[in-house]
């Protein structure tokens, strides 16, 4: 499965013009805040419309302009975990997860939701509301809810930014496992180089609405194309080298 994105949008004071492709791997969109990473996600998910371009998933056109194809968010078969998680505050953990299973019969949905509860170590929390569980647990609920839909690609917008280091490491591991298990494109936004080096198969570096370099973390850290990339990676390079191992 491949997620192919080639889109452009002109806004007052900001222009987004990016092209990239992600296969069955874990890719990281990396760059400073305001570079257009979240906007790209919103366009892939169909909640914001690009001016022109092409988005395809598994050879299915989700968006194409000028031809006029623009599938609704409901039709796009994507799992989208929002930066603020967007858990429904009036639903319990179980109800939130079940709500992700649109269109399935109730019994099937219940069975699947229970399985995800166990898989994501949420047993015992089924009847709690999102405000009554920890940040890491909320994170797992959001991920489980997104997986209920059997997505063909997973978009994670800065999923770990609010977590403590140990919980963060645990979640990174979980996402990595999920990617391997489902074998779908998983794209994750971060501005933490350490995180990007730790989990990414591929890094796509954003700057001011453009992709300035794409490649494996090792390629990007060791051979930055442009001064901008160098500047982006330089301040955490020591930590990153530890994760990547010797050259």
């Amino acid at each position, binding site marked *: 499965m491949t997620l192919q994105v080639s889109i452009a949008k002109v806004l007052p004071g900001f222009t987004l013009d990016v092209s990239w492709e992600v296969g069955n791997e874990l890719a990281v969109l990396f760059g400073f805040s305001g570079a257009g990473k979240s906007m790209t996600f919103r366009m892939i*998910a*169909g*909640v914001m419309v690009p001016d022109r371009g092409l988005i395809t998933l598994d050879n299915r056109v989700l968006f194409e302009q000028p031809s006029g194809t623009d599938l*609704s*968010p*409901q039709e*796009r078969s*994507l799992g*989208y975990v*929002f930066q*603020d998680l*967007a858990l*429904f*505050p*009036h639903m319990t953990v179980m109800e939130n997860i079940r*709500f*992700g299973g*649109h*269109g399935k019969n109730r019994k099937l949905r219940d069975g699947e939701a229970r399985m995800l509860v166990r898989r994501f170590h949420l047993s015992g929390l089924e009847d709690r509301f999102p405000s009554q569980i920890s940040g890491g647990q909320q994170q797992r609920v959001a991920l489980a*809810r*997104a997986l*209920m*839909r059997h997505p063909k690609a997973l978009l994670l917008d800065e999923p770990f930014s609010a977590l403590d280091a140990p919980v963060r490491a645990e979640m990174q591991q979980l996402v990595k496992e999920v990617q391997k298990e489902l074998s779908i494109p998983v794209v994750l936004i971060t501005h933490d180089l350490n995180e990007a080096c730790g989990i990414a198969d591929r890094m796509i570096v954003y700057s001011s609405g453009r992709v300035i370099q794409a490649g494996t973390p090792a390629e990007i850290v060791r051979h930055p194309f442009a001064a901008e990339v160098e500047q982006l990676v330089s301040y955490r390079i020591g930590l990153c080298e530890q994760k990547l191992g010797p050259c």
Partner: protein
Amino acid sequence: MDSSAWFSLRLSLQVASAATLLVFVAGLAVAYLLAMKDFRGKEAVDMLFTLPLVLPPTVTGYYLILLFGRNGLFGRPVFEATGWSVMFTWQAAVIASFVVALPLMIKTARAAIESVDRNLIVAAYTLGHSRFTTAVKVILPLAKKGIIAGTVLSFARAMGEFGATLMLAGNIPGRTDTMPLAIYALAGSGEWSSAHILVAVFTVISGAFLYIANIYGKKAVI
């Protein structure tokens, strides 16, 4: 309280209940459209529905006569077809109460719906849920407190409706004299002791509703 006072109380509750039911359905639909959709003339629609809040009740009543009177826009075809006119019936009091209470529901429910986090709505869409399911399962439950507050306020306003009702339904004892109209008639004819009782009962009922609306209104802000 004598039998005519009881009649007025019962009529007021009946009129206010019927008007509130209509206000709930129509007000919620209009509030949802105003909060969720962008269309040309949106604020003009809001202004039109809000006008009864600022117009003198007699002016609102006058417009209602132009619409529902025997020679009115809607009233004439109905009268020609059936020989019946809504004027001077308890249903006319319902129409008057509906029109003046509607803006309270629209304003309160619109604010409540607009305050629902857009990300939650988008999240429901990306999970594959239709606009209708999202409205029923996500938006309305999260705007519930504001909607309840709007409904209670509308009921209280419908109970207190006087001017437009007088214009459209008249003040016919035993037929259209809701509590506010009965109090007006009692005061006009100097029957103070009966008026005292009705005024006290009315104040208690309206105060109770306002109290309930305040409780939900406060919670709705969160």
